[in-house]
């Protein structure tokens, strides 16, 4: 049991991070905090992808005469794309929040919902 947990410790960390982010994303009433949660949530997935890529004893996947083994380059590439997507989403979300703040004067979700009634 202990071995099972230790052998996969990266995955446990990513699951914890993901739950934290997910909770903040859906439960926090503050719009900015939701975005912070979103970033944690997405970063957790990045950690997962990078964990797939790791090979014991491997070095960064750049050709090097002393290298015995390389890490898997493909997840790195995928996650570069996903990071860019995450940055873009955050940018659009923050722009929306600025507009919301200008229109409503607050960024607390419950107050905004009251105003909309």
């Amino acid at each position: 049991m202990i071995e099972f947990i230790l052998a996969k410790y990266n995955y446990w960390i990513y699951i914890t991070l993901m739950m934290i982010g997910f909770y903040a994303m859906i439960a926090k009433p503050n719009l900015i905090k939701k975005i912070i949660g979103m970033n944690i949530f997405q970063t957790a997935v990045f950690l997962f992808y990078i964990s797939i890529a790791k090979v014991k004893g491997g070095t960064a996947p750049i050709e090097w005469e002393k290298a015995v083994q390389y890490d898997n380059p493909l997840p790195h590439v995928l996650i570069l794309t996903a990071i860019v997507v995450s940055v873009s989403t955050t940018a659009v979300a923050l722009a929306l929040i600025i507009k919301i703040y200008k229109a409503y004067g607050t960024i607390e979700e419950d107050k905004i919902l009251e105003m909309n009634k």
Partner: protein
Amino acid sequence: MSISQHFPVFVILLPLISAVLIPILSRAKKIYGWYISSAATFFSFMISVSLLRTVLDKGEISYWLGNWEPPWGIEYVVDYLSGFVLVVISFIIFVITLYSRNSVDKEIPEDKVVPFYSIYMLFVAGLLGMIVTGDIFNLYVFIEISSLAGYALIAVGRKRDALIASYNYLILGTIAATFILLGIGYLYMMTGTLNMADLRERLPALYNTTVIRTAFAFFSVGLSLKIALFPLHIWLPNAYTHAPSVIAALQAATATKVGVYAMIRIMFTVFKPHFILEVVPVARLFLVLSAVAIIAGSLLAFGQKDIRRVLAYSSIGQIGYIVMGIALANRLSIIGSLIHILNHALMKGGLFLVVGAVVYKTGITDIDGFKGLGKKMPFSMAAFTICALSMVGIPLTAGFVSKWYLALGALQAGKWIMVPVILISSLLTAIYFWRIIDNIYFEGHEVEGKIDDAPPGMLVPTFALAFCCILFGIVASIPVNITGLAAEMLVGG
């Protein structure tokens, strides 16, 4: 070496490159944005038709980007399924783009027209990319392009509620996309590949591992959020209500349909029907959810006063129909689902376009405000009535064909309980549309002032959609034949 071999990639490149050119070229004149968009969507549609014809003549097309053979490189696949959906979606997009000129003039502030069209084209490129791709990570990238563009397009609605609707959509959309990304990671981890066809071959040996089951669960939840399947639909009504009319039509007619297409791809191409029917019987769960969605969507549409909200809730019900066909997973029900993708895109697109025309002329969106419009805007209202009849599923309209095939599929699968569900929901649909049509034709003249019908730039596209609703009701054999081939490919004989 003819140019036609590059068509699969040109379908996406046309809108994408025009999205980039619009901010540069329309500095001189705002209207260039619309010209470029119309031209690009028109050629995209033409190329799609030509692709579908090639597929029907010669079979599946596979295009290797960068000439790296799959699974190492990215592959574009046009087969019966994607060819059909591609033609449907690019046609609707072309029609809506034609329509957009007047509506955008009215509803979008003048200084935002240029970036609006640019994002509009990016949205289109994202949707078309999702259809053609045969690589599961590429699918994610295009999902993100279309959804990012979608958030911004909804947020330009006139009222401030549009902002908060868009924000909520962004949060839920990001959860959905991240779940899909996670599912992709799980599949990659166990198989070492990202190509859909390759995954199909390598997965069956792994069906019993917990990793693959979790991956499937995350795909299901993520895609259900994207298509607004019933308990996960909360973002949809507000988004459709507060978005500009053109965008509401575009989102309702195309975005959810492409989401459903992605779902079909995951369930029947990446996984095999055997997986959802026997290994992990999620098909049953989806069947229940779809039945609930069909009934609940129709019931919720009842209580609404805003016409756009009625249409939004009715969309939730219609998504239920499509998912029902997927969950039954036999040849007839898949035909029903695919034809319903076509029909619902036509009908809902048409209805939202009429609403856009009413907003353009009067600014009214309340159902009560429709009183007496039948005399003031006779052509628009005629189109509305045709589309509404098709929604109900009156014989000789397109809506009847898909419901017929869905019912046949349900009987074939032995799930006869779904037949009354379809009938009850049709009845409910008839009742809530009757309320509106009654207002339009038989109530007094409440609208004051001189209102004439919408300009031809809006009427012609609306009628094109309404005409197709009738056309495909009478000449149903064309879509039935094509989707029949697609269904055979997906679930076999």
